[in-house]
């Protein structure tokens, strides 16, 4: 489904502070599987995740999505693919303060110009799925950490993406909430979605629902995916 061919990513190229975050990674991510990118801090997990999710371009190498080369697409098309194919869950909930939970959830769908009534129904059913219906009208600053995380998950799902990308999703959650998160991931998988997670939390990569674990160190793959 997603194929990375000899991908490299260099930051600050040509300057004394140049450093290579990804060094020739070849990877194949399968459809409807849960893949975890595992490795210590600075191993290049997030960089690799952002390349997979069309958030940044590799310095060299190619990325294919459904056998289509997407590396050289202009920003506009890349954004379109990102919006329709990927749902992002960040380390921090990254919700916009001052507006309601419902508005935050609907935000990624605004540029698509979907009818407001439809969009609202979709957002409300997403919130209902994670027991957040009663919080729809609340301001995001009133939410607890776990609730904010769940709101960001609903937001990631609003455009019904086929691939969910989560960057260290349990980094700021306690054990109970982390288990709750993995249950949600299981639901995604049951719905036929592909999930890619970066994590160095054993609770995540040792989970029974994880299909592939990719070990990263110094921007390179360590051994074969299990």
């Amino acid at each position: 489904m997603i194929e990375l061919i000899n991908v490299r990513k260099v930051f600050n190229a040509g300057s004394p502070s140049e450093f290579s975050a990804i060094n020739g990674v070849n990877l194949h991510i399968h459809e409807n599987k849960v893949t975890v990118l595992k490795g210590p801090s600075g191993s290049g997990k997030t960089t690799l995740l952002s390349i997979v999710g069309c958030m940044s371009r590799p310095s060299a190498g190619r990325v294919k999505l459904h056998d289509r080369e997407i590396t050289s697409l202009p920003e506009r098309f890349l954004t379109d693919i990102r919006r329709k194919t990927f749902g992002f869950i960040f380390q921090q909930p990254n919700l916009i303060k001052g507006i309601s939970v419902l508005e935050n959830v609907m935000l990624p769908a605004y540029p698509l110009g979907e009818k407001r009534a439809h969009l609202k129904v979709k957002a409300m059913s997403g919130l209902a799925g994670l027991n957040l219906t009663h919080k729809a009208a609340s301001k995001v600053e009133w939410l607890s950490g776990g609730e904010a995380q769940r709101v960001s998950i609903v937001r990631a799902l609003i455009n019904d993406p086929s691939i969910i990308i989560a960057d260290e999703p349990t980094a700021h959650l306690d054990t109970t909430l982390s288990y709750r998160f993995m249950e949600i991931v299981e639901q995604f998988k049951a719905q036929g979605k592909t999930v890619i997670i970066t994590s160095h939390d054993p609770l995540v990569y040792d989970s029974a629902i994880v299909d592939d674990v990719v070990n990263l160190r110094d921007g390179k793959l360590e051994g074969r995916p299990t």
Partner: protein
Amino acid sequence: MNPWIEKQRYIIDFTISSLLRRKVKNIGLLALYTLIVFILASTMFFTYSIKKEAKLILQGSPEIVVQKIVAGRHDLFPVSYIDEIKAIRGVADVESRLWGYYYDSLVQANYTVMTPSRVVDTSQSNARTTVVVDPNDPHAVNVNKPLYDYDGAAPEAGSIVIGNGVARMREIGTGDYMPFMSHDGQVMNLKIAGTLSSESELVSSDLILVNGTDFRKLFGIDDKYVTDVIVTVKNPSEVSMVASKIKKKLHSSRPIIREEILRTYDSIFNWRGGLMIVIFSAAVLAFVIFAWDKASGLSAGERREIGILKAVGWETSDVIQMKFWEGAMVSLTAFFSGVILAYIHVFFTGSAVFEPALKGWSALYPNFALTPFVNAEQLTSLFFLTVVPYTVATIVPIWRAATIDPDTAMRHTGE
């Protein structure tokens, strides 16, 4: 509904909620912006209107004024000269004038004292000065009015008609007596027969109209002399020719044609306009600093928000569009409020802020409401001086922030 329209609605809705979220900052910004537009618009309206007003009033001024000059200074005009001028070919009428200044030590103000000019109907000649005016101009009717305008007849001996400024300063009105100290030290008590209309207050504020006899008694001027004369010419295109003939015949005379008077007044108003330009420049400078400040960067909160929007799938163009709407809403609101406030300030409160510096040239400040003269050209230049630079200035930092990689946004949007 068309998805494009729906998308614009979403973006505008989000923009409004963004503006409301930063209420304090945006209200402050709006207030400052409105103030700058207000100053710019007031300056523009004021300068334009006062010039136009003055031009209209002065269009009714005499074609030629002839004075006598002694040692390069204005002297009393001998009545015997009048017949000599009348004899010049092309002259339709010659009218003598008596006018001067009177210093009132009580209120430390200078009044202009004059005898009213003769009513046009009594003129010996049928020749009239023709002034070409725009028929669509509502002020055209004022063109043929004299410099001052009052309802009653010429004051009888012992009575005067005073300007509004004099009435205000001395706190007197019709029916009261006003004492004058004549040239020989005698006190003359003159009765106020009326006050001048406030329409012409720009020029009549400090005016006192007296009877010819009283004038001569007050200043000790002999019957053989007048202050100066005004000459009406049969053919308006011969004005300068007649003026040169007068100069040739009466060497000690100085004929001043209307164009010269208009030029002088124009330079006086330009000088006042110049003062306004100083204020105007200061306001423009304040605006440039303000726009530059806005252009130099976004707040951390705004940057973070742009990062989130980019990361959740907004395109650079969507973000720029949103911020464009934000800038447009702020600047248009400020523009319209500023212009409306300036209009009220200039045309209804008589430019309360600028008045002392700009209108008065003596202790008597004319108190008059300017007639509104606002045209599309003024509003357009104001728009291009304020709204356009502001919008452009805000787009640059937004474009810079919006073009960052969503990856960078994702990494640096942590709270």
